[in-house]
């Protein structure tokens, strides 16, 4: 879409076109598929972003949702504490047993998780699935991406960390953290991406978070996350099903 077309669309939405111009505009809409698609999207941007009150309403709804979630989490926590108050002795015993088990099984478990992680983590996929979706016109992201591709992960992190509020930057920072074996940090980066379902990196972030959890020996969390992916329409759906089976075999 060129500037002239944008001006025309803007005038159309503002009701500033003459009858003759409207006629010609509508004819173009009916005959030119590209123009129609451009206009549909432009109209969505205009209606959604131009409506200040609707944007305020979105903010309010997000706020209500967040508050409710906090209250729910708080409630759950109190409930758990109450339920577990009398189970402290049992919990201590379990911890002792777990520590013992770690000494006996630690090495074997680690190598199995290592194997699973290496089987399912494919660095090329990180780029293949997402490269086209990166906003390359942004200087910081572009520099970060370029460093990431050159495998300068520390350098890339320095760039991506300049944009702590950006979903894209957090996603790629998570990938760089994975490459640097900083899996716990990577999890927090992916968590940031996953918070908002409406973004292009949602599926990838979930999948890589799952792999990080495997690497961190947090199998139960990994199984639950992969189960979620397996039941969704994610690109990683099939792989998630496989890895759940593999994890449960252990």
């Amino acid at each position, binding site marked *: 879409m060129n500037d002239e077309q944008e001006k025309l669309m803007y005038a159309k939405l503002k009701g500033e076109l003459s009858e003759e111009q409207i006629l010609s505009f509508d004819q173009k809409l009916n005959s030119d598929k590209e123009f129609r698609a451009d206009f549909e999207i432009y109209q*969505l941007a205009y209606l*959604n972003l*131009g*409506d200040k009150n609707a944007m305020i*309403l979105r903010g*309010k709804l997000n706020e*209500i949702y967040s508050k409710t979630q906090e209250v729910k989490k708080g409630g759950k926590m109190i409930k758990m504490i109450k339920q577990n108050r009398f189970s402290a002795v049992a919990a201590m015993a379990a911890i002792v047993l777990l520590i013992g088990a770690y000494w006996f099984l630690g090495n074997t478990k680690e190598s199995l998780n290592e194997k699973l992680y290496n089987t399912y983590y494919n660095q090329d996929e990180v780029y293949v699935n997402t490269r086209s979706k990166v*906003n390359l*016109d942004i200087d910081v992201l572009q520099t970060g991406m370029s460093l990431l591709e050159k495998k300068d992960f520390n350098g890339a992190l320095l760039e991506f960390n300049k944009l702590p509020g950006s979903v894209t930057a957090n996603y790629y920072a998570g990938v760089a953290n994975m490459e640097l074996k900083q899996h716990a940090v990577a999890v927090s980066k992916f968590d940031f991406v996953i918070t908002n379902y409406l973004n292009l990196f949602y599926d990838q972030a979930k999948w890589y978070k799952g792999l990080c959890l495997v690497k961190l020996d947090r199998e139960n969390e990994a199984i639950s996350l992969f189960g979620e992916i397996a039941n969704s*329409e994610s690109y990683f759906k099939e792989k998630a099903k496989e890895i759940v089976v593999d994890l449960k075999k252990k």
Partner: protein
Amino acid sequence: MKKKRYKDDEIIDGLRSGNDAILNFIYENYYGVVQKLVRKSFGTESQARDLFQEVIIVIYTKLQTGSFKITSSFFTFFYAVAKYTWSDYRKIKYKNPLRNSTGYHDVWQIDEETEQVEVLALMALRNKLFFKHFNALSETCQTMLRLSMADYSSDEIAIELELKNVSYVRKRRSDCLQFLIEMMKKDAVFKELL
């Protein structure tokens, strides 16, 4: 303390004006059914949250036009739009051949409002898709587009973003818009919605 109930007229007026008490009431009373609807077909919490939000937004937008008329209760109408939107979304995602088949519309038994519900469900889906791609843009891009669609000039955007070069703002804004358009055009769901 007994929770306050509201009549449909009060809910509609409250939503129209973005009244906080009404929004909280709608959330407390309606979110659960949307969550149940989504979870029933293995949807996620995020999908439930998005669906709820988009349905509220489209009804709000419709209310601003002054042509909003329903014969059913507000809840029935809200639920119908939610169900329709979710159903359409899933059918597009799963490419279900039953989409648009007859009988599909009979489920909600609100004949008078069916057309309005259909339009709003389509709007909700389009908005959902729009924000999926919009939120993936950088913050600078988002701000530029938001301000420009709210009629800010390039000079005003430059001031707002503390940028000195106005021609850079023009170029960036245009690139951001172009990028957003390209991303949406590549989206298979958008193609279905066109």
